[in-house]
């Protein structure tokens, strides 16, 4: 199989995408000038920055974002307090016309947010009338301060159903509901959206959080002239949360809607993980904020090469492929046990494994100070594998399943001699 045999295109709610990669509705999709450049770079479509109908003045806070740094690594997460589009509706719609004229094969998704039933209908209609191929209903923007908008709606499930139904009545193009992760169970509001007629679900919007506090002013960042706020966190740090919600919705048989996944996607591996858990289109913002539109080249090339390697020609054949292996802990076969296996040929002698095993693991490692190497007491290894997470060399520590005759040594009881002083009765379930 060759690269030319791979078809990255996908049908999503009857709309054809030449590849599954879209800009999400955010600062990176703020204008046609920007979006056009992203299309040239290879993105298949855009969820345009959420429109407003000019009835509520939109002014973004300044500064509006804050990066989360881990050690020297920049932007492992981003906090963003930006509002929906601050551009006049006319200008955004003119940009729609421009994009559809210049890029007819690219998908234009209009993200909208109304402050009333009529406004939802109005914004849906003008979007359709000016070239939008799909709608994305923003039920989830966490920073909109107007009551009855953004994530306030996303948490009031009956409003989700009501507004979705309103929009569905107003237009004939497909409608996607974008959900907030700042709830415990996303399937429930997603089902409300479905009842309202939604054709697809997009998730996740940003996770409410506080990224950092200005230690001199005791003010959360972004520090907007002495004040901070709880606002949307995005980027690689929140990918696990996004994957979780996507997978839960994908597993929900009652829901059974196409999913547009997002949350921390930067590389083709991130994208593939979302696909394997049920997403069939993928949206990106923070990855672009960090690296620019060009990352789509790597998303496309990486995913294509993976598909060549796995001999899978169509994206559909990957969607949800990991779901059958996703279960709950009670389904695990706990009889099967193993331990870490060390191959020290490439060991550089840093001893981080020793430190973590001693202070966080099963104390299964001893330290040979002369050789500067760990010495594994195999029977004490808990198979937590923490050592492999800190080891700077990729293939020194692996997991090895042990035969069922193998028994792990119990942790040492330091108070063995004090057992006669124990004040203790075994728990008995009251009948």
């Amino acid at each position, binding site marked *: 199989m060759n690269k030319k045999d791979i078809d990255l295109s996908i049908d999503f709610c009857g709309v054809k995408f030449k590849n599954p990669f879209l800009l999400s509705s955010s600062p990176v999709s703020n204008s046609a000038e920007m979006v056009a450049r992203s299309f040239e770079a290879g993105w298949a479509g855009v969820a345009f920055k959420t429109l407003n109908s000019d009835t509520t003045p939109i002014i973004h806070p300044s500064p509006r974002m804050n990066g989360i740094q881990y*050690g*020297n*690594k920049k932007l492992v997460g981003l906090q963003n307090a930006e509002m929906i589009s601050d551009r006049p509706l006319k200008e955004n719609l003119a940009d729609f016309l421009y994009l559809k004229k210049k890029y007819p094969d690219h998908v234009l998704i209009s993200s909208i947010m109304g402050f009333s039933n009529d406004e939802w209908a109005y914004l849906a209609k003008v979007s359709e009338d000016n070239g939008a191929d799909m709608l994305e209903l923003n039920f989830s923007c966490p920073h909109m301060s107007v009551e009855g908008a953004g994530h306030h709606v996303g948490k009031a499930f009956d409003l989700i159903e009501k507004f979705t139904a309103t929009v569905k009545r107003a237009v004939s193009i497909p409608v996607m509901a974008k959900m907030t992760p700042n709830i415990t169970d996303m399937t429930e509001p997603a089902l409300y959206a479905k009842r309202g007629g939604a054709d697809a679900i997009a998730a996740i919007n940003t996770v409410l959080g506080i990224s950092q506090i200005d230690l001199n002013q005791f003010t959360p960042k972004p520090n907007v002239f002495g004040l901070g706020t709880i606002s949307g966190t995005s980027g690689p740090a929140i990918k696990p949360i996004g994957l979780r919600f996507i997978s839960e919705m994908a597993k929900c048989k009652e829901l059974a809607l196409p999913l547009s996944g997002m949350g921390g996607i930067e590389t083709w591996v991130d994208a593939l993980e979302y696909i394997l858990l049920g997403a069939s289109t993928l949206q990106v913002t923070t990855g672009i904020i960090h690296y620019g539109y060009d990352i789509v080249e790597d998303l496309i090339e990486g995913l294509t090469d993976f598909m060549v390697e796995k001999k899978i020609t169509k994206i559909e054949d990957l969607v949800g492929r990991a779901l059958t292996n996703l279960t709950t802990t009670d389904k695990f076969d706990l009889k099967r046990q193993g331990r870490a296996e060390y191959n020290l040929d490439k060991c*550089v*002698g*840093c*001893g*981080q494994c*020793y*430190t973590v095993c001693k202070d966080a693991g099963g104390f299964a490692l001893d*330290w040979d*100070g002369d050789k*500067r190497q760990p010495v594994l007491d195999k029977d004490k290894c808990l198979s937590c594998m923490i050592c492999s997470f800190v080891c*700077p*060399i990729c293939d020194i520590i692996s997991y090895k399943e042990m035969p069922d005759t193998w028994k792990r040594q119990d942790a040492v009881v330091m108070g063995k001699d004090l057992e006669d002083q124990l004040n203790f009765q075994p728990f008995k379930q009251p009948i």
Partner: protein
Amino acid sequence: MSKQYDFSRALAEADRCLLCHDAPCSKGCPANTDPGKFIKKFKMQNIKGAIRTIKENNILGGACGVLCPTARLCEKECSASHLDRPIKIGKIQEFLVRHGREINFKVFEKPEVTGKKVAIIGSGPAGISCGAALARKGYQVTIFEKMEEPGGVLRYGVPSYRFGKDSLKKELKDVTDLGVEFKCSHPIQEKGEVQDLLSKGFQAVFIATGLWDAADLFDKKPAGVYNSVDFLSSPHTIQSDLIKDQVAGKKVAVIGGGSVAMDCAGFAQTLGAQDVYLIYRRSFNQMPAEPDEKIESLENNIHFLILNQPKDYITDDTGKITGIKLARTQLAKAKKDQRRVPVEVKDSQWSLDIDIVVEAIGNKAFEDSGKIYPGVDLDAKKLIKASLEDCRTSQEGIFAGGDIVRGPSLVVNAVQDGKTAANTIDSYLKQRKA
């Protein structure tokens, strides 16, 4: 000189650190500056703690960060070398010390004074280190310095482009803030004067005078020939303008292959020399200078004339130098365990036109250096006999460390000697009281 680290660069480098158990880098530091600990502290955002670790262990942490041959000390032991390259510990250290000053962080609190007085002869690295350590223990320390300003080799032996005098001033301020008193332009030079200090209220003396006499190549020294000591100290002496005028636009030859020779060559270039030659009779690899110093000198367009033996100076009618007679050498076969010896190539003499020569073939003790401490045993090279374990000399109450004991050595070793001596002096004086 490679660029100094800023905060983000230092953090990026610290991020590469593997945070080794029983950190080998820390064992590689002669002065126990403990890089394993200060880098871990830096990574844990405990930045003041990192600076505290450096300065408490090594009062000249800033200077050592710049001047240490880290490639053969801490960085040589670095586990990350086995991945690709060692952590640049010296540069992180230099950054942290500098950063501490930028945020106005004072590492040391004012010590409680015991009232006991200790005299130190020489304000170089060993003297400073000993003085700071004793002051932190509450001793009243006076450092006697014959030159006009303190710092010893850091001021008079290291060119400013390597270690700036402003950095030195700040490093010295940490010492004076501890209550150490510098008495500059105050040479201890009379016969037996060191012993006399013991009867003038000082309860112990630490000799840290260093090596300030230069070895000569030939008996004659025509006009235009300098030794490394005079040459490198010239910016701080009356010879300053004289040497600068003589070097600018001229051809300079530096004779020698050690770190001091590299400094002399680099310094000649900063003075605007037209061409700087480095003449060394052995091979490139045999040059005792650090590998990175040699590479840097080459890259800075110093002309290396290796395998060349100076034979004689050529002078004009006025006795001023105009050239050097040289002979090509080749290395003889290696004899067991000995380094290969250069042997002159027959009929290979040639001469190099030169305006200025700097001899950098080694520092030594002044011939009469022992007269100020007649009770102290010396070796044949006039170095003080003292154990590096405790810096005790043959005479009670008198201690010694640094180059005057070790012979030519590193700043970081002198720092350690100062610390060792301070500990010995402290226990000596406590015992004596008891």
